[in-house]
């Protein structure tokens, strides 16, 4: 404490002194986010995978460009009886005995870059659109999980009492189901009728169904740690100070407690997106997720496995896209966690 300089250092006057003062303030004033960002920037592996993820997302976002400008088709258009020109020769997209064309790369000007599927649809176009669906489901489901977990966790941890008891019991019961089994059960229950809740109707083959299901099943894994953190945060001095200033419960919860959860929420979010994409593929593989003809990486792997002996690339390529996406999120999320809160214990189950 005694080393803290009380007066300006002698010898420096005017702008030079101000500059030095500003410099000192800069170092002292570095918040946890800035520090975290600096640590993250040093983690080259995490940055590499973060960039890879952005590239993957952008290429899926650009799916319509590839479909319109290069492949000249859509994700659902069948080309069963069409022909394409490869090296000046005409070829059937699907041969007369039902075998679809293999990968053409750029031989047909980008048409059927990865070949066709059984209905003569362009696999590359479906791969990109499927990626869009998988990513949308991943982000949508993670968003729902985060929202529900914050609401349940904060209410349970902040008010305690019987509300806490009810929420905790509910989470415990949900936690007793293996994630995939609960998701499959909900998928089967919702597949035929969809959801009709008052004015809201969601049909059974809508993409919103897997988003909702995956969003719900991961809630116990996030809401419990959030509740635990809220329990300890509510006893902190700054909450007491806010209460002394006359802040109400809602205000304390959302402007004092929730901001302090933000690093946990951020770390959970990246890992949730990764796990939601994985769970989507598993559900689609079992037939309880994305419904054909909608493409997703999961449905494409499922369709590919049926033909693995004649066309293994139909299994390998969508799987690789999925693994790269999930892996980059996992590595990046790991880096974010190490940078922000190295002691955080975050675990999700598959």
């Amino acid at each position, binding site marked *: 404490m005694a080393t803290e300089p009380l007066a300006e250092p002698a010898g420096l006057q005017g702008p030079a002194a101000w500059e030095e003062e500003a410099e000192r303030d800069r170092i002292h004033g570095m918040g946890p986010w800035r520090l975290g960002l600096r640590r993250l920037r040093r983690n080259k*592996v995490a940055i590499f995978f973060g960039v890879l993820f952005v590239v993957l997302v952008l290429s899926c976002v650009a799916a319509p460009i590839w479909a319109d400008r290069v492949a000249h088709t859509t994700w659902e258009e069948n080309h069963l009886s069409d022909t394409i020109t490869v090296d000046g020769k005409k070829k059937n997209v699907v041969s007369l005995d039902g075998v679809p064309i293999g990968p053409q790369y750029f031989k047909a000007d980008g048409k059927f870059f990865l070949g066709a599927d059984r209905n003569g649809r362009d696999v590359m176009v479906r791969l990109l659109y499927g990626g869009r669906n998988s990513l949308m489901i991943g982000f949508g489901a993670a968003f729902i999980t985060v929202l529900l977990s914050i609401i349940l966790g904060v209410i349970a941890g902040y008010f305690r009492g019987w509300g806490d008891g009810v929420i905790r*019991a509910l989470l*415990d*019961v*949900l936690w*007793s*189901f*293996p994630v*995939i*089994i*609960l998701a*499959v*059960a*909900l*998928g*089967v*229950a*919702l*597949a*035929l*009728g*969809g*959801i*009709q*809740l008052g004015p809201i109707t969601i049909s*059974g083959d809508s993409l919103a169904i897997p988003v909702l299901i995956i969003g719900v099943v991961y809630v116990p894994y996030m809401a419990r740690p959030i509740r635990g953190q809220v329990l300890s945060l509510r006893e902190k001095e700054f909450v007491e100070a806010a209460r002394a200033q006359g802040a109400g419960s809602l205000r304390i919860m959302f402007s004092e407690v929730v901001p302090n959860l933000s690093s946990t929420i951020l770390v959970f979010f990246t890992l949730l997106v*990764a796990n939601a994409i*994985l769970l989507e*593929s*598993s559900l689609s*593989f*079992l*037939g*309880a997720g994305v419904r054909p003809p909608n493409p997703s990486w*999961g449905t494409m*792997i499922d369709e590919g*496995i049926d033909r*693995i*002996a004649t066309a*293994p690339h139909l*299994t*390998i390529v969508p*799987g690789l896209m*999925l*693994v790269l996406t*999930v*892996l980059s999120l*996992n*590595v990046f999320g*790991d880096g974010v966690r190490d940078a922000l809160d190295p002691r955080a214990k975050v*675990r999700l*189950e*598959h």
Partner: protein
Amino acid sequence: MGRFIVRRIIQMIFVMFAVSVLTFLIFNVIPNGDPAVRMAGRHESASTIKAIRKEWGFDDPLPQQYVTTMRKVFTGDLKSQFTQLPVGEEIKKGIPRTFSLAIGAALLWMFVAVCFGLYSAVKAGKFADRFLTIIALVGISMPVFWIGALMNYYLGFKLGWFPNGGYVEFGTDPFGWFSHLILPWTALAILFIGFYSRVLRSNVLDTINEDYVRTARAKGLSERQIMVRHVLRNSMIPIITLWGLDFGAVIGGGAILTETVFDLQGVGQYAADAVGQLDVPPVLATTMFAAFFIVLLNAIVDIAYAYLDPRIRLQ
């Protein structure tokens, strides 16, 4: 100890009751129209739907419906809408297969994860550690049915090193049983190896700084003895808990994907086939079976802990 066990069992029964209510709610009450239509699955016709409504009592009040459903589940009266075979019998047929898969995979993933986790903790920060960390992350980023299908195709079908799916009874041909299960064990274990080696690595790194480890080193024990006797033993405790729970989850249907890809015809594949047909009764039964098993293993793990650590009993 006796009181603790009784209390824990009562608690377990309550959770099982809640689990059965939740399962019932998922299939009978979710707000999307007629549960009888849903139950009829892909075979809806006016007469089937009418018969189902009568059989399951969908016009009765909810508590009555709950009792009807549970009676069907527990008396073995539950039949598949698709094949008309009794669900209980089919699940019983699948259990030895699912157990074979789960036990072998659990032993494999525990053994490999301990080796990986310990090695990367000892080499913390070095190249080997970073490499193993990336490998572990790759392991948890792969869909099990994808890697399973590729293994089955390349190692089983193309190279012919392993049988291409299917299951052989241990009693009829122990060697065939083993060779049919090698690929499924590996595929299922990959994911868990990723998880466990990471958890073990961080546990070992925490334990290494404990006072008793320094004491052991000061006593002049060899590095190997310190690692195995003092560090590993204490780092294993949280892992063993996880192990119990994950084992329960795998038995209870966590292997649904692995079984389907390798055509093992266990409980998981039974559920998966029913999902494909939107056949509600088997899905309902396997969902409850899965959750019951996890609740049961949870209780067993807790009781084992209380036996090992008297402090827990007094809480």
